[in-house]
């Protein structure tokens, strides 16, 4: 379909479902918002083309928040004025908490593809659901995986202390690793203001003799770390989480550097799965880019909405609040496969948390391989 923003009038066509989305499409984190925006758009287009939900079309609109809490609330209010009945978003955590405060008091149904902190859910009144893992889950799962598979003895960590996602995973990973008897020999942080040079952090890990580097960070920074480690001649194992997904798509990145990198991710763009392949193909055609996990999560979020609407028989003429009450109950009943469902599919509990099983993959010859 045409651009999600254009042609939107605030005059409501009562016979449609109004879904809004929020995330940064400008500013330093624009990539995440753009992915979420596009992923959802694909799902909406598919659903609409296939006849809609309960025969009703979806109207979808996405607003930019520049990864700023205040602007996110502005975006939310803009969508409210437009007639939004449910929200896919917001993309990033801190803004999501701010918006969650508003959706809770408005009783607006919210499903976030990617804001993964537990605080997101606790800011709501049961009206908020996550598609992604919560950060603690990822941290714990990673530590367990490393311990169970005896991947390393000495572990180094590099994480982004100014990022809620990264520091959230790191915190739980560290605790769990200690429980599992893993030895963390170095832990070094960086911040949003200094995320292009990791020489020092790598040197520390190297000096401490870390044979595995745990990188609970996004792939952009990871790509630099891989490159700098290579220049230094430091060759530990690298272990990432879902934020690492995308590393193979960085334009001009020498994928050889990512050889043997391991990551836990619910989504891999080159999985054999047919749904995934279709999605990737459409995404590439439409946006000239390979989708990452944000796009996949957001695609799943729209389908979860569809499932919940169908389950609850919510109708297009419901107010946002009524819709919310209906969907809240339905969410815990649905089960779907989606792109990120892994072997057990996606289910939600009452607090809004998702249950899904992460896949551990290793990069071989520039492609993911299940481990």
């Amino acid at each position, binding site marked *: 379909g045409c651009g999600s923003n254009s042609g939107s009038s605030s005059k409501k066509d009562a016979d449609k479902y109004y879904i809004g989305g929020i995330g940064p499409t400008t500013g330093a984190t624009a990539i995440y918002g*753009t992915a979420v925006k596009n992923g959802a758009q694909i799902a909406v287009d598919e659903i609409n083309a296939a006849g809609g939900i309960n025969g009703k079309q979806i109207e979808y609109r996405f607003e930019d928040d520049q990864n700023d809490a205040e602007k996110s609330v502005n975006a939310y209010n803009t969508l409210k004025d437009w007639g939004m009945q449910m929200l896919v978003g917001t993309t990033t955590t801190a803004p999501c908490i701010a918006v969650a405060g508003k959706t809770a008091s408005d009783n607006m149904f919210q499903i976030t593809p990617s804001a993964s902190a537990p605080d997101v859910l606790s800011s709501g009144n049961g009206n908020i659901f996550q598609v992604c893992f919560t950060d603690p889950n990822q941290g714990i799962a990673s530590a367990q995986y490393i311990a169970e598979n005896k991947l390393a003895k000495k572990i180094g960590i590099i994480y982004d202390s100014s990022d809620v996602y990264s520091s959230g995973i790191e915190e739980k990973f560290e605790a769990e690793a200690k429980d599992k008897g893993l030895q963390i020999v170095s832990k070094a942080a960086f911040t949003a203001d*200094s995320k292009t*040079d990791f020489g*020092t952090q790598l040197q520390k890990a190297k000096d401490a003799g870390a044979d595995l580097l745990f990188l609970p960070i996004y792939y*952009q920074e990871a790509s630099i770390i891989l490159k700098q480690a290579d220049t230094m001649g430091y060759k530990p194992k690298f272990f990432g989480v879902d934020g690492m997904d995308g590393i193979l798509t960085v334009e001009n990145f020498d994928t050889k550097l990512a050889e043997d990198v391991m990551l836990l991710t619910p989504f891999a763009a080159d999985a054999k799965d047919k749904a995934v392949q279709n999605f990737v193909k459409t995404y590439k055609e439409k946006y000239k*880019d390979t989708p990452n996990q944000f796009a996949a999560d957001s695609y799943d979020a729209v389908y979860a909405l569809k499932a919940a609407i169908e389950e609850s028989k919510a109708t297009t003429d419901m107010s946002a609040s009524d819709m919310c009450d209906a969907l809240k109950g339905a969410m815990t009943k649905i089960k779907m496969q989606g792109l990120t469902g892994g072997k057990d599919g996606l289910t939600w509990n009452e607090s809004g948390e998702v249950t899904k099983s992460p896949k551990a993959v290793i990069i071989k010859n520039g492609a993911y391989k299940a481990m």
Partner: protein
Amino acid sequence: MSFISYLINGISLGSIYAIIALGYTMVYGIAKMLNFAHGDVIMIGCYIVFVLMGSFHLNSTVSIIAAVIGCTLLGVVIEKIAYKPLRKASPLAVLITAIGVSYFLQNLALILFGADTKSFTSVVHIPSIKLAGGDLTISGVTIATVISCIVIMAALMIFIKKSKSGQAMLAVSEDKDAAQLMGVNVNKTISLTFAIGSGLAAIAGVLLCSAYPTLSPYTGAMPGIKAFTAAVFGGIGSIPGALIGGILLGVIEILGRAYISSQLSDAIVFAVLIIVLLVKPTGLLGKQVQEKV
């Protein structure tokens, strides 16, 4: 051993700050304006190289030359459109316009090149040097950066001291009206300053992205601010000051990150800056401008 390796990292980072700071200080020293868009010109330079090498498969030398030319033109055009009309206005007004230009360039790049980070292939083909049996590595980029830094500084100093345009720049920096009375074409001189500053920005950008191989529309912002800090640190307007300020800043940042706290490294840099300025209010090499009463 690791100390020396941190030191090398610091010098590597610092010399990049220094190159950016040279451009900053040059424009500041002559045109008396904080060109907050300088960092973004750097980013544009990187994209030019990235696109030429990646999409047009030109070799790196040609691409760099094209980037230098491109940035030089960009600098001149920005100056013409956004700064020149404000020559007589308050310096603050120009500062704000520079910020506008900075936003403009960032968002233009966002639309043209997208938000996703690109991995930048180093254009420096000097092999790295391994010392102490491979424990210490000095990368080719570091060597290239340090050398270009010193060469550029020397060239700039000679240019300003010896050439006629350099003399004109000095005059303009002191008093535009009086400079005009000497027969100096003030507009041309300022344009030239921007041209040089922006050309340098292109070189700085290429080295920056070669050393830290990533490129996004916001690549220039933080190094820009750091380089501004470095310029002030060394004494803004002073060319050797920019070099020394840049390198010290890089070293302090890396050592602070290594030995004190990696999260507070910026705070440490800024704290050192403040302390230096309190002891020497015009920076390390800045001239104490005496106001005669």
